Structure formats: structure tokens, C-alpha cells
């Protein structure tokens, strides 16, 4: 009993470790649980245009950073004729800088980036801002501003509802008299946002502007959208002034924060920056993998992904073998099926993956059948074991080449995959089967041969399943779970399914 308990504990630990590693990879690193899962990848192209006046040119563009839910990778800058540098600002933000001694006429510069949905999030460090500077209003505007703040104050319960009510008062028609006066004729979102910021400053609430891009497929010549961030005492809370709601819109990439200029152009005029957005789909697994590699996630850094592609491909097959052992263990210990050789079915199943099931079965039966026939004739020569086995190997190779040539001439190319059968295994199978035939008779050969093929087929069906192949390769830590399962099966001392039939007389004869 003590030993059993030990097995349970070890199995539980193994399963726990394996499962938690796999779940971590899924939830934190974004590895998909199912094959063929795709994620949207956005390509954003910012286009800087200006008219050069012939002097030296210096263009500086604010660049976005990776942020909550968004990973920015694959940046590239088209800089023909321009010197390019990426400058890290003291506050941690980045700017792209293009420079040129001399330029004439209309200039176009591109900055292209790819945005992946990222699962890895670090909370940004926040330092509480100081109190805001009061805005400069003329007396008429100041009066109506404080009147508006009073109105809103009366309608709100706390800071949060105050901000929401304020934005609502500026954005949602019909406007109150005070709001209409403050906004004037300009009802553009930019102006609304600007006014809201002024009012927030007047109310003494720290605030800043956030400019970003809503990601929508196929959009061209987009401008940045203005959002508002408000300090709620602990963190910055983002608001969309157009809807007066808290939180950023879906698929929104923040380009810059605060009063930083988006684009500075020296030596040019009529400058503008516009954005084009394109959505494409990439396999979720590739995206997660490249994210993890970029972030140097240890679980991925020290895994088979760090191997060369060729070795990775080898592991794709190798990692399937434990599935086969699990099937063999299940069939032999729980069901009680007799197979010829413990692991022969796995090797046959691996060959089936190359040949496909029906052809594989057909080829296997043909080669083993013909081999058995020849083996019986060899038996008459009274050879010793080594000689006999070597002779059988030679015969099997002869059979395989014969079958290949014949099928090629007949145009049955599928049969050429016969070479994927491990010939030593085939030879051993033939030898064992013929001994079995002599010692126990053809019935036992049929039972064990059929059992082996049944197990091989079951193993093949599992191993060729795309979900299984996906999970074993992308979550190798699930090996630990398989190990736990095998340990549990290995300590099973209960009845086998076949024994329930074999020992039925014990119940009936009473």
C-alpha cells in the first residue's frame, strides 16, 4: 500500500508540474492549445510627407512602444537618401530621426511596424503626477467654465463619475449653454478633448492627452485619435472623449502620451503624418513563439525550439513515441491484448504515419506473409538463429525492393513508402511469428499478430491526430503528464478486460 501511495504522489507531482508548465505557456506566453489557431497581426505604416525648402532636413517622429496587450515587432524604416537614427528619450520613449544635408521638393518617409497581440504584460511603472497647471481662460470663459464644473459636480458622486459626466457634458448633444459656449463652433473631437483637459486642470485633476491609432483593417490616411488619461489617485485611467466612456477602444495602439509632439520637421513645410493599417493572419503558435523568443522566456529559451530546424523536425516524431507507449501500456495492462514484442506496435505505427493506414496494413501483411512463407522453407535448412535472422533480413530487403519496383512500374506510388518500415523490426516479427507458429500454432499467430496490428492502428490514429501532434510538439512538458499516466497504469493490479471473459467460468460454475 505504501508503494502505491508513493506512486500516486509522484504521479500527482509530475502531472501538476507538467500541466502548470503547459498552462503557463498557454496563458502567459500565448501558445495556442489547438493547431491552426490564427491571430490577427496588424501592419501599420506611417507616412511622413513634407515639402522641402532646399535646406538641410531633420525629421523627428515619435514612436510607439510595446504596451498592454500589444507587442511591437518588425519595425522598419524606409530611409532612401536619409540618415536614420533611433533616439531614446530621457523619459524612455523613442523617436525616429531622419536627417539629410539637402533635399528638394516633396519628400516622403515611411516607418512600418507590425503589431502582434501579446500576452506578456508588465505593469508600467507609475509615478504620481504633480497638480495640474490651471488653464488660461479669459474672464467670460473662466466664468462659464466654473459654472459648468459646478453643474457637473452636482451631478456626480466621485472623481470617476465626475470625469465621465464632464466628458458626457461636452460630447453628448444637446449641450448645456455653458458647454456650448466653451466649445464654440469647433465640435471636432480634438477640440472636445482639448477643452475637456482644460476643464480637468481647472478642477485640479491631473490629466494628460493620449494619442493613438484605432486598428481597423484596410484603413488609409488615418490620423491619430485623441484620448484622455486622468490620474485617479493610484493610476492613470484612460477615457475616450467621443463616447465619454472609461477604457481604450478595442485594438487601440497608443502612439504617445502627454504633450509630446508627434512630428517635428526642420527645413520643410506642409508636413503631415498619416497612417495606413492592414490586418493579416498568422499562426498563433508562430506569433507566440517569436514573442517568447523576443522576451527570452526561459521555458522557451531552454527548449527544443532553440534547436536547429532539422533537429526540431526529428523531435516532432520522437515526441510522438511516448503516445505510442501509452497506448501499448493501456492495451496490454488494462485490456490484456497480447502483442508480439512490447514496442513493435509503436514502430509499426510510426511507419504507418509515412505510408498511411490502409496501405501500411496492406504492405505489412504482404511483407510479413511472404517473409513467413520463405522462412518456413529456410527452416528446413536447419540454420542457427543468427544465420536464420540474417537470411530473413536479406529476404525482407529483397521483398521490399521487389515490391517497390513493381509498384513503381504499375504507377502505384503510395506503395513506395514500404521503405519506411523498419526492416529489422519486420524481420524479427517474421522470425517470432514463425517460431510462434511452430510452438503454439497458427491461432496464436493470428491472436498476437492481430493484437499487434490493432495496437499499432490505435497508436497510429492517436499519433497522426493533428491535435496530438500539435500538443506533443508545442507542449513537450506534457511528457511529464504522460509519464504520470504511465506510472498510474504501471501500478494497476486490477483485472484486465480479457480476464473478465477468461475467468467468467469461475462465476458461472458456482
Amino acid at each position: 500500500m505504501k508503494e502505491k501511495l508513493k506512486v500516486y504522489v509522484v504521479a500527482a507531482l509530475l502531472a501538476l508540474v507538467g500541466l502548470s508548465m503547459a498552462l503557463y505557456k498557454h496563458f502567459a506566453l500565448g501558445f495556442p492549445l489547438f493547431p491552426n489557431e490564427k491571430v490577427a497581426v496588424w501592419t501599420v505604416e506611417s507616412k511622413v510627407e513634407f515639402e522641402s525648402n532646399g535646406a538641410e532636413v531633420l525629421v523627428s517622429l515619435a514612436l510607439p512602444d510595446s504596451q498592454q496587450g500589444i507587442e511591437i515587432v518588425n519595425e522598419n524604416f524606409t530611409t532612401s537618401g536619409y540618415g536614420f537614427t533611433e533616439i531614446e528619450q530621457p523619459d524612455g520613449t523613442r523617436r525616429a530621426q531622419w536627417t539629410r544635408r539637402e533635399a528638394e521638393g516633396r519628400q516622403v518617409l515611411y516607418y512600418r511596424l507590425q503589431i502582434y497581440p501579446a500576452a506578456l504584460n508588465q505593469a508600467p511603472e507609475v509615478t504620481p503626477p504633480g497638480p495640474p497647471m490651471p488653464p488660461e481662460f479669459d474672464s467670460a470663459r473662466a466664468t462659464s467654465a466654473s459654472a459648468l464644473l459646478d453643474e457637473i459636480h452636482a451631478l456626480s458622486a466621485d472623481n470617476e463619475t465626475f470625469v465621465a459626466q464632464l466628458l458626457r457634458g461636452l460630447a453628448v448633444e444637446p449641450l448645456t449653454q455653458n458647454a456650448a459656449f466653451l466649445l464654440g463652433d469647433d465640435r471636432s473631437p480634438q477640440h472636445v478633448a482639448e477643452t475637456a483637459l482644460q476643464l480637468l486642470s481647472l478642477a485640479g485633476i491631473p490629466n494628460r492627452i493620449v494619442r493613438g491609432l484605432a486598428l481597423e483593417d484596410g484603413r488609409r490616411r488615418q490620423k491619430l485619435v485623441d484620448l484622455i488619461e486622468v490620474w485617479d489617485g493610484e493610476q492613470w485611467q484612460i477615457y475616450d472623449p467621443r463616447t465619454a466612456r472609461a477604457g481604450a477602444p478595442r485594438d487601440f495602439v497608443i502612439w504617445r502620451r502627454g504633450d509630446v509632439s508627434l512630428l517635428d520637421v526642420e527645413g520643410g513645410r506642409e508636413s503631415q503624418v498619416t497612417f495606413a493599417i492592414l490586418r493579416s493572419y498568422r499562426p498563433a503558435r508562430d506569433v507566440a513563439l517569436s514573442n517568447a523568443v523576443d522576451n527570452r522566456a526561459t521555458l522557451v529559451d531552454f527548449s527544443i525550439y532553440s534547436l536547429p530546424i532539422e533537429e526540431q523536425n526529428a523531435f516532432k516524431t520522437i515526441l510522438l513515441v511516448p503516445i505510442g507507449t501509452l497506448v501499448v501500456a493501456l492495451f496490454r495492462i488494462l485490456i490484456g491484448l497480447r502483442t508480439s514484442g512490447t514496442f513493435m506496435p509503436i514502430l509499426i505505427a510510426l511507419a504507418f504515419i509515412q505510408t498511411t493506414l490502409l496501405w501500411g496494413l496492406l504492405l505489412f501483411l504482404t511483407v510479413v506473409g511472404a517473409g513467413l512463407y520463405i522462412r518456413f522453407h529456410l527452416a528446413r535448412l536447419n540454420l542457427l538463429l543468427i544465420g536464420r535472422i540474417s537470411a530473413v533480413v536479406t529476404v525482407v530487403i529483397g521483398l521490399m525492393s521487389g515490391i517497390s519496383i513493381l509498384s513503381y512500374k504499375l504507377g502505384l506510388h503510395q506503395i513506395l513508402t514500404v521503405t519506411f518500415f523498419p526492416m529489422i523490426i519486420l524481420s524479427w516479427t517474421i522470425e517470432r511469428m514463425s517460431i510462434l507458429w511452430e510452438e503454439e500454432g497458427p491461432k496464436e499467430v493470428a491472436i498476437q499478430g492481430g493484437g499487434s496490428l490493432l495496437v499499432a492502428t490505435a497508436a497510429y490514429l492517436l499519433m497522426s491526430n493533428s491535435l496530438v501532434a500539435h500538443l506533443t510538439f508545442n507542449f513537450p512538458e506534457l511528457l511529464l503528464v504522460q509519464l504520470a499516466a504511465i506510472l498510474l497504469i504501471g501500478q494497476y493490479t486490477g483485472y484486465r478486460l480479457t480476464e473478465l471473459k477468461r475467468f467468467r467460468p469461475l462465476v458461472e460454475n458456482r
Partner: protein
Amino acid sequence: MRFASPFRLREIGLLGMNERNFFIARYNRRALYPLVDDKLKTKLLAEQSGLAVPKLYGVVREQHEVETMGEVLDRHDSFVIKPSRGSGGKGIKVIVGRRDDVFIKSSGEEVTRLDVTRHVSNILSGLYSLGGKPDVAMIEALVEMDPRFDGLSYEGIPDIRIIVFMGYPVMSMMRLATHASDGKANLHQGAVGVGLDLATGNSLFAVQYNRPLKLHPDTGLPLNTLAIPHWHALMCLGASCFEITGLGYLGADIVMDRHRGPLIMELNARPGLSIQIANNTGLSPRIRRVAAEAKARERSVEERVRFSMEAFGSEPPLAAAV
């Protein structure tokens, strides 16, 4: 396809293959297996310890010894030649007599001296051993069947299998070869299994192909009145196999010689489970009982046999009546 309920089987105490393998792994050290897988080793071991076995006339180990074995053959009128590591009764040649230079097989067929030496040669080259490994040939005394067993076995001699756990006999049966089993003693091949009362050696139950039966299928002799003579000695012989091999879970195959009484034929480190069908009961409770008993105290062969007769017999022990 109908299945028995596993709970019902558990109730009966059936020992399953998985659990048997577990017992074997636990009680039979791997290093001890060669002692029983090689019949010559088993025989020498038993002889050393004074346990009764069919007398060994000679051993042929090398091909060149085949020429000189004639002397051994000349000294005996009847003998058995068998491979030391053969399986399933293959390669066994039984010579019951001779006429001048010609040997007579049990079937009455005549064979020449050359046939016999060729047979030995084949044994040495591994023709009958598992996997074709080179083997040695044993020449031993022919067991003469106890006349009380006449007509019970079709060709060959009936043998008695005793399962011995930690030196305690826990179950036994007699195996009778039939016409259907082609002279072989394996139950799944059609031999009759007769469960024996551990206390008395009287038959309890008999099955062929898992079905109960009362009469021998070939000779029509009644099976329910079968009684094994020298039962106590036979039990002691089986129980002693624990001491000589060190195997905690073994099957002893014993035959009854008309002159010498019970003799050990061979031992098995992985005995099968069909004996439970022949006895119509399970091994598990008995093994569990003995495991507790063996842990609690050490006993001599005699004491162990008495314990088994009293604990597992269904009639009053024979020894008590004697």
C-alpha cells in the same frame, strides 16, 4: 462476448495477471530465474538438497560428446532425452525399451541409434530451445506411471501442479493430457484440469475448455473420485522447492513414479492462472493469508504443509486420519 463482473471476481478472490506479475516482481528475484528456466540446474539443485527427481543418467553438453554418449545409452533399457531449456514439451524423446540395437519409443515406433544421436545433436544446436539458443541435452530415467493413474492421461504421464507461495502450498491441480490436447498438458490446448483438495489430495472439481466435467473425455473414467496417493509427501516435496530456489512464488510440477513416489519434474517462476478455474476458486485470499503468516513466523517445511492442509483444505486433512 460476455464479461464477468470484476466485483464478483474480486469477491471470489481471483488473482489477475497484473497482480500476479506484481507478486512475481516482488517475491521472485530476477537473478534466480535461471535456476528454474534451466531444467538441468533445477535437477542438480534438487539432487543436492536430497529432493526426489527422476534420476539423471547423463548430460551431453558439446557436439563431440555425442559420439561418446553411447555408453550411457548402453547401460539403460529405458530413458528420456530432453532439452534443458526446451518449452512446451518439445524435443522430448521417450525410449521405453530396446531390441538389439534398435530403440522403441513410447508410441511403439522403432528408432535407430543414429536417430537418437541426431536428435541429441539437434537439441545442442538449439532447435527446441526458446529463441534457438544453444542448449544441452539431458538423459534421465523414465518415470513409470503409478498404475492408479491408468487411463487418466492420453499419452504421457499426468502431472500435479502445486502453487507454492513463500514455501506454503496454496493451490494444486492435476493436469491430464487428452486426445484433444494432443498429449499436451496445457489447459488452453484442451487438457483436463482437476482441482485437488490441499488437505487430502482428493479431486474437488474438473474442467476442460473451462467447462466443468465429471468423466474423462477419452476414457470415460470418473474424475470426481480421483485421489492422489502419498499426498503429504507430495506437498512436502513441493513446499521444499522454496528453500532450494529462493523463489517466493513458484509452480512445482510433480509426477508420481510407481516405485519412487512423487518426483519433481520441473519448476516454474511464472506459473499460469488457469489453476483457479480448475479449482473453481481464487488464489488471492490464500496468498494474502500466507503473506501475513510468513511475515509473522518462520516455519519448517513440515509445519508449513500442515498449515496449508488445515487452512486451505476443504476436508479434514489426510495426515490427521493416518
